[in-house]
């Protein structure tokens, strides 16, 4: 039964309670208490309308009750849950906006991530090619997947390929390609050209200088380009100039600046033929 005169008093009495669930619970309790008093008065031969008025009068002024209830129902965790919930909704919306902006910038304006493209032939997908300069044949292909770690970065040699190029004048040269994927779990830990400081040597003692150690001289060196292939990865598409390791068993990539010692050994004897 709805006691019309009870509701305004109860609404005022619970108005200082912060949490909605606490307001509802306290309101129900007060309603039960007033209902009990109302039923008692009805048993004394008083009309229902008068009993309602007397019950509200017996509860007294709602203002001090509201103040008292407001002080009691102020739990820390309840407040924390209420306000963190509101903040989370706002921050989650902001996250979606930022994610949209990131995806738009990366895929619409920047055309996505980079991958290697080749002018004459893809050393890893092709096995044979020819053009005006001569013909090219792949002699060896491997996917060694050998890794080394330093400073939070993981360097992995993912693919290697050895090609023989025969020029139209009959000269034969060999070119060794390899790819190194560099990964770091932190999205802000990018880098551009660290592979330019890697040098190499083979089992015969031949040395290939790092890109930055070539200095314009006519020496065998590592050359290549790096590509930003994903949010956490860079791919270094490298090759050796003046390849002289045809009879070597292995080739080692080295990084040894500033006390580091990163070594990646590539087996030159294994792997399938072209």
């Amino acid at each position, binding site marked *: 039964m709805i006691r019309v005169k009870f509701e305004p008093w109860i609404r005022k009495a619970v108005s200082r309670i912060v949490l909605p669930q606490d307001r509802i619970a306290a309101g129900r309790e007060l309603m039960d208490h007033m209902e009990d008093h109302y039923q008692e008065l009805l048993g004394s031969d008083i009309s229902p309308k008068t009993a309602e008025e007397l019950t509200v009068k017996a509860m007294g002024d709602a203002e001090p009750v509201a103040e008292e209830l407001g002080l009691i129902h102020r739990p820390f965790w309840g407040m*924390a849950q209420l306000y963190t919930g509101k903040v989370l909704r706002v921050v989650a919306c*902001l996250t979606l906006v930022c994610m949209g902006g990131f995806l738009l910038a990366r895929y619409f304006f920047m055309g996505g991530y980079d991958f290697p493209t080749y002018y004459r032939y893809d050393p890893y997908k092709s096995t044979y090619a020819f053009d005006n300069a001569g013909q090219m044949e792949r002699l060896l292909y491997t996917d060694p997947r050998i890794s080394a770690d330093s*400073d939070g970065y993981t360097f992995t040699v993912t693919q290697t390929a050895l090609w023989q190029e025969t020029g139209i004048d009959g000269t034969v040269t060999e070119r060794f390609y390899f790819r190194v994927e560099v990964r770091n779990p932190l999205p802000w830990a990018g880098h551009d050209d660290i592979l330019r400081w890697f040098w190499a040597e083979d089992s015969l003692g031949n040395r290939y200088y790092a890109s930055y150690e*070539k200095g*314009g*001289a006519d020496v065998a060196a590592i050359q290549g380009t790096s590509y930003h292939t994903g949010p956490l990865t860079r791919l270094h598409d490298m090759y050796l100039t003046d390849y002289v390791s045809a009879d070597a068993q292995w080739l080692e990539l080295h990084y040894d*600046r*500033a*006390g580091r010692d990163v070594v990646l050994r590539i087996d030159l004897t294994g792997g399938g033929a072209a």
Partner: protein
Amino acid sequence: MKKFWKRLPVKVQACANGVGILACLVLIYIFLGSPVLTAEMAFHRAEKANLVGPGEVLATLKPQGQEYSHLVLAEAEEGVMLYAWDRWDAEAREFVYLAKDGPLTVAAAPGKKLLWLQTHACLPVYLFDDYADAVRAELDLTLTGEYEGDFYHNTYQLESNREGEGYFAFEIQTDSSDGWEGQRLTKLRNVTGNSMADTAQTVIHAAVRLYDANGDLLVDTNLEIRSAASKAQYK
């Protein structure tokens, strides 16, 4: 899902909201490109990316006439580092690491500005030293070589008072309209920086004199400044 959430204690809900807020803030930071607030933060990040360090920052300078806003000078046990950083221009950023050959190391400020196109080229040069008592330095840099058939032999006499611990800062300013001087200074920059230019045969001679607070000569020595290519090929 909603029923499950409502059954959780209020404390757990509040903590879960907190974790969610932190996760969202991290994602926002990543989606905004993980910006750094200061040049020093950018330097430490670049240090790790270049597999060197950890180094101690000696100074963060704002060199004039360069394409970047800040230059961080730092020193580690085995080398010195220079990091050119610009908050907005990623292309202008460059990290240089030089292995130490002794207590004195000379390095030109990195940069990609084409010095030979500048009528007023300005190249900051730094001398990293281990002499705490030295308050004044004189540096004579001699550049020799050949450019387009003409041989040159230029000596730049520089001097500086100590501005910060661990280094002296100099500046080479040129006022040439023919670009040749810019070419020579570019050579100095290439020798001490990351470059695939023709530096394997280049040796730059430097005479260094350091003075203490009384004006007494502390150090009087000659250095050979060689590029990474020169050091690797001519050990």
